[in-house]
């Protein structure tokens, strides 16, 4: 009887430890912006409703955002972006599924600044490409702010840009991610 109790206590203890040390950090209000610079024109847009989460155990990092939710300063640019280039009614989302490589080096219980390589697959317009960058993770009172930037070429994601406007759109668009994650479970 004593032995059974001991085994049960050990299993429960291990389960409790696993839950405590691991967990999911999440937000539905992450920010993604992009910036295209050419001598002809600068174009930028922001999205403040990015759904994103990561696991402190596996380092898996995911996000999903709606293309139509990118807001431009100029309404006409926003219209052209959605209707002509991104076809956002047909391809409504951009998603990322990847990994924070050095997740084990980040102490989520201690305030501090950490950095890690992030690798994964970015899907836009049903085209998936590998993406690699370095993310900065700032832990403050249990909130994790993650920042990362990388560049992408719109032509790699089947974005068709008419020749007439091509000089206005960069082939290296800077993507900036900035999200505050809180512990969920």
């Amino acid at each position: 009887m004593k032995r059974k109790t001991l085994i049960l206590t050990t299993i429960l203890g291990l389960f409790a430890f696993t839950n405590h040390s691991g967990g999911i950090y999440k937000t539905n209000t992450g920010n993604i912006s992009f910036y295209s610079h050419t001598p002809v024109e600068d174009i930028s847009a922001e999205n403040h409703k990015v759904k994103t989460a990561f696991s402190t155990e596996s380092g898996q990092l995911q996000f999903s955002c709606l293309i139509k939710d990118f807001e431009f300063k100029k309404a006409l640019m926003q219209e052209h972006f959605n209707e002509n280039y991104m076809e956002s009614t047909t391809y409504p989302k951009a998603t990322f599924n990847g990994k924070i490589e050095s997740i084990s080096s980040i102490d989520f219980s201690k305030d501090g600044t950490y950095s890690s390589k992030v690798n994964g697959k970015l899907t836009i317009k049903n085209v998936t490409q590998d993406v690699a960058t370095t993310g900065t993770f700032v832990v403050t009172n249990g909130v994790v702010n993650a920042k990362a930037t990388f560049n992408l070429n719109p032509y790699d994601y089947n974005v068709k840009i008419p020749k007439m406007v091509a000089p206005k759109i960069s082939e290296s668009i800077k993507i900036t991610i900035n999200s505050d994650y809180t512990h969920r479970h």
Partner: protein
Amino acid sequence: MKKIALLSISFVILCVLLFVYRMFNKPHTNVKESQAAKLISAKQLFDYFDRNEDSAMVEFSDQIIQINGTLLSKDLSNELEPQIILKTNDTEGFIRCGFKPSELQNIEILKDSSTVNLKGICKGMNGDDELTLLEDKDVILSSSIIIE
């Protein structure tokens, strides 16, 4: 005769330039001043997207929608776009409504579980079955305003 022709051509060119300038600088949709294209409950809107996202996108996206529902919670974690979440029949499905920061005062006075009427531009449904960490799904409205 030549002078009249020259004046006419100049006038036409001026009109074209003015039209191009106005098109290029046209303002974003003013939700407050615009009539809602559809009036629907939060539960019905989520059901449409959950049943068939493709056809719901065609029917609702980019439309100004007037929606009523029960407030689950306020999410003021992003000061660039304060948000509220409305309940649906699905425990893992919500309506997430984003507001301009100037609307913050109108959101702060809302009480959880109260009925909310608002207008906003429907953007689609965020979330992905393959991204398991994200768990739930949100139908997104932007540039929302609370209706008294």
